[in-house]
């Protein structure tokens, strides 16, 4: 392919990638998740005061609801807030940006792995329109940033292998190092990747070491800076260890129950790990249901498109019979190591924690395209594939834009923005405002952090919040009807489970509904004098 044509196609692919990730970024997903408000407010706080939400100066871990976030995403978000102001767009900006640029790095990496320009472009396009990658790029999922760092790091490593320039190795290590400070799962994956790369190419390193050992000073310094400090920090920081312990599969309630009557607990824990690991190899997870965008056990989306199944199978075949041993080893490593970090955690299969696995499928699809284009009937098969793929993309688009908000609105804390916006502008009219921290679509099982939604949507100054944790006249708790309804001139914001069936409906100022039609939150104004006078 001619160089100009190649560049034009790259621009088209990147433009597609940008459109799919940036179009209506502020309004889709419709509300900020608890992770996003946490990232957003901590970033704003860092930008304005140099301290996090809890007043800690330039921290390396950020406390969130039942979680500790690594620093890279927070510090990046503070840059976007300084550029675009404090809003949904700036909170989501960097993840969407890295997500949009990932197809470009995929193309460049595949070129370095000696795939043809056509194959690299087709595979890059495949990543650009892959729902798995798009869905997580449109919200602050730091795994997208980490994945970008890993693939870019790999690209620089391949450049280093070719040119033997030490600065490329330094950039590679810096990017891989950044990834471990971005997403927790990388702390499992990265040591394995580094070991793999070093073991595969130890001859290059040995030769270079024999020739001039001093040139390794800068890569060694970078390694120490990112990985050495992480090891030290992980050992000494209880927050990070606490998070790992919280997610550890041994804490699964069902397993704990079984362990109580088990005479050989090690066997059961080991088998639980095998179970968690092998669930990622289930075709239903990969091609049909892994993304969890609809109700459990119902039609949905897999991490890959269902139509990709035969082509992935063909790609695996071409990969297995390929003569390139390095790519085969790399693919095998990625196949086995991709879901490893996720397998140590409890719960159902996670399409977020396994996103790093995507590169294995990239290699497989690249083999499929590479071999397909060599065949006489290649163009016909490609046309048929494009037809089915387009249909699958339409299906994915419909599920993401229509079914996803309907079935997952509560998980995304839908309704809080509207309720909080009302509080921001009207709190002075009330003596007291009470906001529930638990609601849900089917049952009140979703724990939320309304104080952060208040801080974000009312755009409250972090320096004031550091001095005084009280926000207006607001109290965060589940409204207790029998006590709180007797409070004069109070605004109660709660789910419909928080109010008795026979409560005075004329007290309802407003009801915010989920996209599926169920009531999300009632805004209720108390007027006990009138009510209790009439009642008794």
């Amino acid at each position, binding site marked *: 392919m001619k160089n100009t044509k190649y560049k034009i196609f790259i621009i088209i692919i990147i433009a597609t990638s940008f459109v799919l990730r940036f179009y209506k970024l502020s309004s889709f997903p419709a509300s900020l998740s608890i992770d996003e408000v946490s990232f957003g407010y901590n970033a704003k706080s860092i930008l304005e005061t140099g301290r996090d939400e809890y007043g800690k100066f330039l921290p390396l871990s950020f406390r969130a609801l039942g979680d500790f976030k690594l620093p890279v995403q927070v510090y990046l978000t503070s840059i976007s807030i300084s550029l675009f102001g404090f809003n949904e767009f700036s909170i989501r900006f960097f993840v969407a940006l890295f997500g949009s640029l990932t197809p470009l790095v995929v193309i460049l990496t595949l070129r370095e792995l000696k795939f043809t320009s056509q194959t690299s472009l087709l595979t890059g396009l495949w990543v650009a329109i892959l729902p798995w990658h798009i869905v997580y790029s449109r919200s602050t999922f730091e795994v997208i940033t980490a994945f970008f760092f890993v693939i870019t790091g790999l690209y620089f490593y391949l450049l280093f292998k070719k040119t033997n320039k030490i600065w490329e190795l330094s950039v590679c290590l810096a990017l891989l190092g950044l990834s471990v400070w971005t997403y927790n799962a990388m702390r499992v994956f990265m040591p394995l990747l580094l070991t793999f790369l070093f073991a595969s190419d130890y001859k290059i390193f040995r030769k270079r070491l024999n020739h001039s050992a001093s040139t390794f000073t800068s890569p060694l310094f970078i390694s120490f800076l990112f990985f050495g400090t992480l090891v030290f920090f992980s050992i000494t920081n209880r927050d990070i260890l606490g998070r790992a312990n919280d997610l550890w599969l041994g804490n699964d309630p069902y397993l704990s129950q079984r362990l109580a009557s088990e*005479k*050989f607990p090690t*066997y*059961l824990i*080991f*088998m639980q790990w*095998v*179970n968690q690991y*092998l*669930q990622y*190899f*289930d*075709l*239903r997870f990969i*091609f*049909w*249901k892994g993304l969890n965008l*609809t*109700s459990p056990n*119902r*039609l949905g989306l897999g991490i890959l498109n*269902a139509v990709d199944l035969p082509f992935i199978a063909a790609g*695996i*075949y071409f990969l*297995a*019979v390929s003569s390139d041993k390095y790519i085969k080893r790399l693919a095998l490593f990625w196949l086995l190591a991709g879901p490893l970090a996720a397998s140590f955690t409890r719960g159902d299969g996670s399409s977020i924690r396994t996103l790093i696995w995507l590169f294995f499928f990239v290699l497989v699809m690249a083999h499929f395209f590479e071999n397909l284009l060599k065949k006489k009937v290649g163009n016909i098969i490609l046309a048929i594939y494009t037809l089915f793929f387009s*249909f699958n993309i*339409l*299906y994915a688009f*419909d*599920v993401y*834009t*229509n*079914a996803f908000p*309907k079935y997952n609105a509560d998980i995304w804390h839908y309704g809080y923005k509207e309720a909080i916006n009302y509080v921001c502008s009207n709190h002075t009219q009330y003596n007291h405002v009470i906001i529930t921290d638990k609601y849900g679509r089917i049952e009140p099982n979703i724990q939320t952090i309304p104080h952060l939604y208040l801080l974000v949507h009312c755009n409250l100054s972090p320096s004031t919040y550091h001095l005084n944790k009280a926000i207006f006249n607001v109290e965060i708790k589940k409204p207790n009807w029998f006590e709180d309804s007797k409070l004069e001139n109070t605004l109660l914001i709660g789910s419909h489970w928080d109010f008795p069936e026979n409560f005075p409906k004329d007290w309802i100022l407003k009801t915010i509904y989920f996209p599926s039609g169920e009531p999300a939150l009632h805004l209720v104004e108390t007027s006990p004098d009138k009510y209790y006078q009439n009642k008794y």
Partner: protein
Amino acid sequence: MRVLILLNPTIWWMIFNLPLGLKEYSKVPPYFSQDIKGIFSSEKINFLLQMRSISSSPNFDTSLGKRLLFNKLNLIFDSIFNMLTAISPKTYFTVFDKVEIIPIILLPFWFSGIIILIQQKKYKWLVSPLPVALLIGILGKPNLFFLFPITLIYLYYCVVGIRKLNPKYQKLLLRFALPAYSTFLTIRLFTSIV
């Protein structure tokens, strides 16, 4: 292959419980008719209609586009993907009832066996679990007796993988590691000692 069958406690469990197996096989016709009806159960159809009717545009829900995207074909694919759980390695290498169907230490050999079979272009062996899985899926009863044919095919994959192993390690695996682990599984399966 014979060694692997002999050292597989689950197969021994099935042999000792053969009457139960025969009883299960005799129930195949009723199971079959029950599960075929289940593919288009009213619950599933309702969900399909829900998916079809959710729309940001009020006039779009009855359009041809929605009908093309959400129709009974989705339910057929949904059932097929459910059926394919029967070929998932998770079904065979994790605890089924008390122990795994195929000893976990054979998992790496199962995996390498598949790669070798792909390289040797022995597609017959690679594809053969699919029709069995679909049949099990139609019966809707993925119990040990129905999973038996796929168990045998997967044991063959393990054999292919083991054959590629260095003879020294092969001996170590087949004479010591596998018998020892199988003994543990057998005790676990037939008694409550471990």
